[in-house]
């Protein structure tokens, strides 16, 4: 892709260019790969390799990300087909909005759990997870969806008798020292909830822009057909 050409097209006719992008595969692929990738990293790297067990809201966040991945994959089949694009769009909106809500809730729980003064204002820890539409995901795939971590906590807990390799030890020491995941652990800057909110929020903003462009395009086409 010629970056200069694309930039020029975006500047001179943003609506047409953005609409063109929706009908191409790359943005849908990007969303599906990003969301699937985040879940994969959370599961394989943080949960399995670093023994950072997922909390309740964390598994809901995984669910929201996978919903968006599925939506993206369906749209990728052929984004020019309105039904497929619409499916991708609706599921992506659903995932992004619920994902942001789970992230806000997790942030509140994280704050209440870690702040010695903080306590009131959160619901506490569920006895068992409840996924949207009553999906029994924790039974279907406990490794991915059973919240084995404590609500509000994601620090590594290494089982007895495990020998860690050097890299593992380095990461585990870092996240143990910060008592959980942070984008910059030494500064306790941006916890998992805030980082997830950013990811969902970014996609949400793009989705809104794309939906607006789509709407304008439909309106224009209608006007043109009336004028003709």
């Amino acid at each position, binding site marked *: 892709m010629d970056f200069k050409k694309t930039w020029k097209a975006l500047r001179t006719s943003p609506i047409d260019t953005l609409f063109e992008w929706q009908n191409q595969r790359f943005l849908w692929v990007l969303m599906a790969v990003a969301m699937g990738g985040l879940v994969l990293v959370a599961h394989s790297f943080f949960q399995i390799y670093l023994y950072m067990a997922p909390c309740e809201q964390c598994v809901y966040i995984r669910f929201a990300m996978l919903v968006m991945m599925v939506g993206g994959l369906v749209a990728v089949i052929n984004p020019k087909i309105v039904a497929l694009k619409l499916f991708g769009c609706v599921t992506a909106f659903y995932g992004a909005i619920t994902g942001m809500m789970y992230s806000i809730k997790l942030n509140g729980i994280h704050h209440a759990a870690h702040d010695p003064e903080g306590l009131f204002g959160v619901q*506490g*820890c569920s006895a068992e997870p409840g996924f949207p539409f009553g999906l029994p995901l924790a039974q279907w795939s406990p490794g991915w969806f059973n919240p084995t971590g404590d609500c509000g906590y994601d620090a590594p807990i290494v089982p007895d008798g495990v020998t860690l390799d050097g890299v593992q030890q380095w990461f585990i020491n870092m996240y143990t020292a910060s008592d959980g995941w942070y984008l910059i652990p030494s500064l306790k800057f941006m916890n998992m909830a805030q980082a997830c909110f950013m990811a969902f929020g970014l996609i949400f903003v793009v989705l809104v822009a794309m939906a607006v462009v789509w709407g304008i395009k439909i309106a224009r086409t209608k006007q043109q057909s009336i004028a003709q």
Partner: protein
Amino acid sequence: MQSRFLKNAVKSVLCTFFFVAAFQASAFTEGTDYVALEKPIPNADKTLIKVFSYDCPFCYKYDKSVTGPVVQKLEGIVTFKPYHLETKAKYGQQASRFFAALMLKDQANGVSLLDDKSLFKKTKMAYYAAYHDKKQRWDGGEADFLKTGLDAIGMSQADYEAAAKDPKVEEMLQIWKASYEVAKIQGIPGYVVNGKYLIYTKNIKSIDDLVALIKELAGK
């Protein structure tokens, strides 16, 4: 002239009445601050049941700073009854049996469950601290788990096993099974007044607020 005076008088009396009534009305609402249980816990009149699990961080936080002062302020109004939830933690069943046996010992010794001498309280706090502060997970199994509690009170395994055989322990565990249905509603910790009203934890604002709500529900 007179009728206008009368009208005004009636108006002001009515206004005062509504004003006072508004302030006397409950500050708590069902659905926001508490919910009436569909299946009330039987034989729980004049009690404050607390559903908890040793692996729940907020149960630990509440037990460190809220439960004690709240129960003290409610002395004579409700009796405090902790119910351990056996379904949540890895060693939930073992913990429930252990706590039930020690609670009965406390009862026999005439020690309050909030007293620092209470065997139940000592072991409960020991499990909380081991799990949440020291991040112990007892990978060695059940005996490993029990050791933490036994060490906290200097009890031998044999003494515990003898205490756990008391049929009253089994009775208590059966009663505690009600905690599962309660925990499903909004998670734990879960405070239940008179076995009928579950308090919504997220809307508790302070210790005094919780005391006031429990007092109101206890009188219902």
